[in-house]
């Protein structure tokens, strides 16, 4: 049995492959920890209630809403944010596909969209259009860039090819 809080407690998170040390209260969400404590502002705070998907990150490769995840429960897990996708200044194929297919207007929902798509393709590398629509259902885009988003995801899937 492990007890934390209610005051701040020191935890170690693995974010984008690097260890990060933070002092957080148990009520601190992973989203607030990423944005406020670690300055990783790619994940966005919008509804804060698990409705919109703008805060989507990967925890051990699984897409979750970081606004509904407590930071203290992420010790020992690998967290991936949008800041961790590009390698050596080269955009991830999904990011490149979003650019090429004009899959955004204001861009506020885009980090969550890209990470949701990342999780979708990891599980289903060659999705049909219907599977992309279903797989992206947890991310709202108030600009209505859905057509471009679907095309970007399908195009990135073709580029990377079926994974072995």
């Amino acid at each position: 049995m492990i007890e934390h809080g209610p005051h701040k407690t020191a935890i170690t998170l693995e974010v984008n492959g690097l260890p990060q040390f933070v002092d957080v209260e148990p009520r601190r969400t992973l989203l607030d920890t990423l944005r406020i404590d670690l300055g990783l502002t790619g994940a966005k705070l919008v509804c804060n209630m698990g409705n919109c998907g703008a805060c989507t990150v990967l925890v051990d490769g699984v897409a979750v809403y970081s606004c509904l995840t407590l930071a203290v429960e992420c010790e020992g897990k690998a967290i991936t944010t949008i800041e961790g996708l590009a390698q050596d200044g080269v955009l991830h194929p999904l990011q490149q596909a979003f650019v090429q297919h004009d899959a955004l207007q204001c861009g506020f929902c885009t980090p969550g969209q890209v990470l949701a798509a990342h999780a979708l393709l990891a599980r289903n590398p060659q999705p049909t259009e219907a599977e992309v629509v279903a797989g992206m259902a947890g991310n709202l885009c108030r600009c209505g860039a859905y057509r471009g988003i679907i095309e970007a995801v399908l195009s990135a899937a073709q580029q990377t090819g079926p994974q072995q």
Partner: protein
Amino acid sequence: MQPFIHIDVANSEEVIPLLDARSRPLAGGTDMLPLMKEGIVAPERLINIKRAGDLRYIRADEDGLHIGALTTLDELDRHPDVRRDYTTLAQAAAEAASPQLRNMATLGGNLLQQARCWYYRGDFHCWLKGGELCHARDGRNEYHAIFDQSPCVAVYPSDPPAALMALEANLRIVGPQGARLVPVAEFLQPPSAERRTLHTLAPNELIVEVHVPKGPSGSVYLKAMDRATWAYALASVAVAANIRDGRAHNVRIVLGAVSNRPIRALAAEELVEGQLITPELARRAGETALAAARALEHNHYKLPLTRNLVAQALRDIMAG
């Protein structure tokens, strides 16, 4: 969110002594954390049960299906045995929420989801929160009940429990006095003056397993939403039946999102029992299922919608 003490437990046995009126178990957190952010609940201790590995399994055997309470909705929807033999449950889990929520939300937590009524979630001291008045009854009630079962007209929002009722599932619940088995149909009850919740779990109890008896030959879950991808149900129907020689036997019809709890449509079940269900009989079953329904000011659409869902589900189940 109010400050709280966070306790990780390693197995289900450690949980029970920690549960009381001032603590809450935390599984997927997809409803508990919004309730805490909204100030509707403010536990002093949050008992994180996610690491209790003994509560996360799906086991199919001659006795039916055993589902650990920590099984996520995503795991349920993807399980080959569930998809093949308990189709209504797999469909309900698949349509219950967005991919991210299904990755997080557990079946045990889904059974305990509280009302999504905007007055309950909003800044109103409504009857369900212990107040005097249901604001939705004479207020904005587009998404509310058409079967009146308590002073509150919020609907029970979860999808899988309606499917579980059609499959006559039971819950295994543990508390300080040991374990009890209770049918889902009895566990979910309209709120009362003394118990302002949509379920009957005591504060010192925990759902540990859902047991689904060996499945009927066919089952289906249909959900109507107000957008093409994911939303809460406007209405839903779960149907299970054994189809033999072209006739439907042991038919179970459950209506979701129309009342404080999923409702068995007993008169409609009786009408189609042992029958070859023609489209005409399916239509009449829909009318029978809704005979006692009464719309509120803003939700008249739910009557034909639910009626037609019942008819369509019966046609689907006959088509196999």
